[in-house]
């Protein structure tokens, strides 16, 4: 919303004050002012009112005329002018030689063979409207040669306030409300509005009016006739234009002017079409043509202004075409009303039609405004068109009154909330300047919220704090830390593990952390031949590609691997992100936080890569939990999983997640020559597993003894199977078993296994170790593992 300092100055005397500084304060205390402040008229000088004394056609041009202009000097000035509307006796805006319009300085110059010593200007050229159809037609009686800035409010400071920052302030949707803020900030009086005394018309007949729907809070109207004026005063048009509105005609301009001044939207009906005003909704939908000529579908929830049963306007949004003021309108009915804000907002959304009026109504306007706005309207109407005649009494139905808001608090409350000392006098003065009624008894305040703040904005004591502090100025606050007691803070287990895992993956294993979206990327999955699995969907997705919430991060990561093929011959990525795996008994999403890891390699074979991933999971678990993960063969449940080497990852026998190899069909679509393996771990399950504590193992003083055996392992026998053969044989002294060498020929698979023995009490004898090894070798024979 654009605001004119000239307009604001109608209501506050800023003499001696820096207006720009006040605008800055307004931005800090009330609502954000956009950065660009417009200094209207600053680019214009030397333009005067001048009269066209003669008009001669140009001998060679149909468009051009040769004028003699009286610009207040002793002699007439010759001007060549191309405007179509030139006529003798016309007064216009004339840029004299030496005048400046923007970057242009007017100089005498020959134009189509004749000297032109100045320029007659259109309103657009001097920046007071967008009318460029001809030169400005000045109808006011002004002496020739008068600087145009001395008669019209061309010089102005215009600033813009972001509408969003006014959402909660219905009172700031007009200059008068804004002026109240400026007055409070400047410490000056807010002047009362000049209004017409409406009581004078009480004797006249009332308009037939009835509110038939609770969505209309108040409806005030008045009938006026004999309006003669059609063009608005120049200054009014300038203000409207500076504030972003186009001039239309006097009546339309005046309703707009009122709206911009008081924030109260108004509408004028042709009284012939609106004799019996009813405000209601209809049972059935219908089509209604608004004054912009657009046919709109009205449903049963939309509040309408009607002439009996004929709709004439969409309440709070826009009037109808049929009831609009037309040329032969003699009597008009002026509407000034208040409606339910939520209803107007919903209607604008349904109609997809937002207007300057609806924008204001949505904010919960003060119903107390309606009659004042009419009184003000009449005041201005009479001022500019003295012959008008009021033909009805003010007709006013006030169906719903907002409750009066009264709040009581004491100074201790203010002190506690602010953390600083603001004295009672300042509090009283501030609140009074904003229109609050205040009474102070000792340290106790009783406050009456003014009607324009009481529709939703100020309802509780905390709101009063805002009023006091924003005018006090946050820049003036003394800043202090809290005095709260200290207690230890126990970190969240999942978060702690997450941080540790990320560190290990990045720093030890060189993986890259990536982020992705929470939904399945339908198009990218499709390119990899991965169907989007049934899962909960977005109800209002605007893009069908991102409709279904993912149940795993793995397919996302496979897409990311595809994106990064070519980045390097080998890389690994991970993400800690969220998935939805289904619905619970209350139909709520079951959400899990998962760690997903995917490795890609062109240099490692798939086995090496797979075991690398296994090691990553094992090391991470060992490091954080001091425990060993185990694996169990799993059956594939997703199309991207290779059916072989798919394993459930377990910790303490509880499922942590899954690790596997990408299905060749998907893998080939990513990279035919690379190995790709993945794992997904549930973060909550991981965090839930208790950490084993570290038990210090004192190094033995006696020499350890290693015993290697090389064995041939038949197909299908796992290390885990062999481990059972020494599980109960080694006793206290078998400390560790590991593979130290692998030897494969086409004929057999062989490994060298090292058994590490040691004792803390004694030097081991070869005999006792040999005895154990003999038993182990014997056990191994049981699973057909023989010494090589």
């Amino acid at each position, binding site marked *: 919303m654009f605001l004119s300092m000239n307009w604001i100055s109608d209501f506050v005397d800023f003499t001696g004050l820096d207006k720009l500084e006040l605008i800055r304060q307004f931005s*800090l205390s009330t609502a954000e002012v956009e950065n660009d402040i417009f200094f209207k008229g600053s680019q214009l000088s030397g333009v005067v009112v001048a009269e066209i004394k003669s008009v001669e056609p140009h001998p060679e041009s149909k468009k051009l005329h040769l004028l003699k202009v009286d610009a207040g000097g002793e002699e007439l000035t010759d001007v060549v002018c191309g405007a179509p509307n030139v006529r003798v006796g016309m007064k216009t805006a004339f840029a004299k030689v030496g005048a400046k319009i923007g970057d242009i300085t007017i100089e005498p110059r020959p134009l189509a063979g004749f000297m032109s010593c100045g320029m007659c200007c259109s309103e657009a050229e001097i920046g007071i409207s967008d009318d460029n159809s001809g030169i400005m037609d000045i109808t006011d009686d002004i002496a020739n040669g008068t600087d145009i800035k001395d008669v019209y409010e061309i010089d102005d400071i215009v600033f813009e306030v972001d509408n969003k*920052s006014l959402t909660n302030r219905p009172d700031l949707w007009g200059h008068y409300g804004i002026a109240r803020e400026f007055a409070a900030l400047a410490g000056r009086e807010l002047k009362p509005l000049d209004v017409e005394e409406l009581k004078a018309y009480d004797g006249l007949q009332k308009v037939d009016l009835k509110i038939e729907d609770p969505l209309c809070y108040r409806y005030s109207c008045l009938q006026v006739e004999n309006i003669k004026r059609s063009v608005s005063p120049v200054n009014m048009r300038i203000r409207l234009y500076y504030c972003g509105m186009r001039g239309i005609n006097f009546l339309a301009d005046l309703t707009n002017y009122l709206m911009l001044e008081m924030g109260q939207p108004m509408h004028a009906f042709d009284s012939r079409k609106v004799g019996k005003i009813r405000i209601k909704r209809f049972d059935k939908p219908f089509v209604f043509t608004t004054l912009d000529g657009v046919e709109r579908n009205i449903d049963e929830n939309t509040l309408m202004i009607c002439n009996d049963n004929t709709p004439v306007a969409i309440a709070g949004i826009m009037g109808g075409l049929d009831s609009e003021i037309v040329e032969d309108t003699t009597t008009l009915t002026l509407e000034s009303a208040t409606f339910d804000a939520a209803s107007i907002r*919903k209607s604008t959304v349904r109609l997809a039609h937002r207007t300057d009026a609806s924008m204001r109504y949505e904010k919960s306007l003060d119903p107390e405004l309606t009659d004042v706005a009419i009184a003000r309207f009449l005041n201005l109407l009479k001022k500019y068109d003295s012959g008008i005649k009021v033909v009805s009494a003010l007709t006013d139905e006030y169906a719903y009154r907002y409750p009066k808001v009264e709040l009581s608090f004491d100074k201790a409350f203010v002190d506690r909330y602010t953390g600083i000392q603001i004295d009672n006098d300042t509090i009283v003065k501030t609140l009074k300047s904003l229109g609050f009624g205040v009474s102070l008894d000792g340290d106790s305040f009783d406050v009456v919220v003014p009607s324009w703040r009481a529709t939703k904005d100020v309802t509780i004591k905390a709101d009063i704090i805002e009023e006091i502090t924003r005018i006090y100025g946050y820049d003036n606050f003394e800043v202090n830390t809290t005095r*709260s007691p200290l207690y230890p803070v126990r970190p969240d287990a999942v978060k702690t593990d997450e941080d540790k895992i990320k560190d290990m993956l990045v720093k030890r294993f060189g993986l890259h952390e*990536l982020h992705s979206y929470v939904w399945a990327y339908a198009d990218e999955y499709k390119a990899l031949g991965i169907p989007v699995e049934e899962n909960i969907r977005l*109800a209002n997705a605007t893009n069908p590609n991102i409709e279904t919430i993912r149940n795993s991060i793995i397919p996302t990561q496979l897409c990311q691997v595809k994106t990064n093929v070519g980045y390097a011959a080998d890389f690994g990525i991970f993400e800690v992100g969220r998935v939805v795996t289904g619905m619970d008994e209350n139909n709520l999403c079951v959400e899990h936080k998962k760690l997903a890891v995917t490795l890609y390699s062109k240099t490692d074979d798939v086995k090496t890569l797979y075991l690398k991933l296994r090691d990553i999971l094992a090391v991470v678990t060992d490091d954080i939990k001091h425990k060993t993960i185990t694996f169990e063969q799993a059956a594939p449940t997703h199309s991207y999983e290779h059916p072989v080497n798919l394993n459930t990852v377990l910790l303490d026998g509880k499922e942590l997640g899954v690790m596997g190899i990408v299905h060749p069909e998907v893998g080939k679509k990513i990279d035919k020559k690379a190995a790709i393996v993945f794992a997904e771990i549930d973060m909550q399950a991981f965090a839930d597993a208790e950490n084993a504590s570290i038990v210090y193992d004192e190094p033995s003083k006696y020499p350890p003894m290693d015993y290697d055996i090389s064995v041939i392992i038949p197909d299908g026998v796992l290390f885990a199977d062999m481990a059972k053969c020494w599980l109960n044989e080694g006793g206290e002294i078998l400390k560790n078993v590991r593979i130290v060498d692998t030897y494969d020929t086409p004929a057999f698979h062989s490994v060298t296994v090292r058994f590490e023995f040691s004792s803390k009490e004694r030097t081991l004898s070869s005999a006792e170790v040999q005895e154990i090894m003999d038993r182990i070798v014997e056990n191994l024979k049981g699973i057909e593992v023989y010494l090589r």
Partner: protein
Amino acid sequence: MEKIKTIMDEVKQKLSDVTDLGELDKVRVDYLGKKGRVTALLKGMKDLSNEEKKTFGAEVNKLKGFVAQKVDERIAELKQLEIEREIAAMPKFDITAPADLSRGSYHPITLVQRQCEAIFKSMGFTVEDYPEVVTDYECFESVNIPKHHPARDMQDTYYLENGQLLKSQTSAAQNAILRKYGKNLKENGVPIKAIFPGRCFRNEATDASHENTFFQMEGMMVDKDISISNLIFFMKTMLSEVFRRDVKVRLRPGFFPFVEPGFELDINCLICGGEGCSSCKHSGWLELCPCGMIHPNVLREGGIDPDEYTGFAFGLGLTRLAMMKYKIKDIRDLNSGSLKALSQFTDDE
């Protein structure tokens, strides 16, 4: 005696001829070994008279000492030579060749988030995690945004088929956190101090500066007598720590339903220091985080009596912060999954 002289010369010659320790040992054995030539001289003494034995023996012992000394000297020389050879054999490496910097990387959001977390952890705040799929109650109702509140229009929310939604703001966690820690506040006087970073979602078209998925970090503190003055302190402290400089802040009134009073917090532009530049649209200020005193309705809904307790809350755009910190121009890079873009971020603390 002649022989002794001859041996001495021989030994000198031979020792100077040998070039490695193995050969040298052969020379040593050849003269000093049990069957060596010096030993043989001693053995040949038996035919001499006692007088001669005495003189000759002394000479041979001298010789023995001489040879042993020469051998030791030569050993030391050869060892020295060997080290020198080894040194000479070492080629000079080209350390100017580019280093292998292959290593892992963090997502930039993680780095910025950790930095913010560390600041608040150091001031005794807990870091809370919260789901991404939440209910209307969590995201709106419980934080004073009832149905049909205009604030709901300001956020284009992703709704799910079952009526739940993807949280549009981290404030969705406020109610749960107030409830989680409220008991300890009321019974033991332990203030609620929590931050809750998280991913948020808005149903909007994406471009270089708009994303439908982004990270925020929200924080709050509730206790007796928490004030606006405290809020400004924490904001200023946090932001000064984040940007590692004394950041100037200013508060403007801002409307957010879950706070009252609510503020928009600006910091002086980091690029121009407040002078005005294109980054701050020549205002000298950057709008950074909404904050305010927690609305009494929000406290009440969280089971906390607003007449007894007050609190502040703030929101910080982690995505925005990461973009500012690393000068990332296109917000979409963050979720692009591109390693070219995202593998550049190593530990930043």
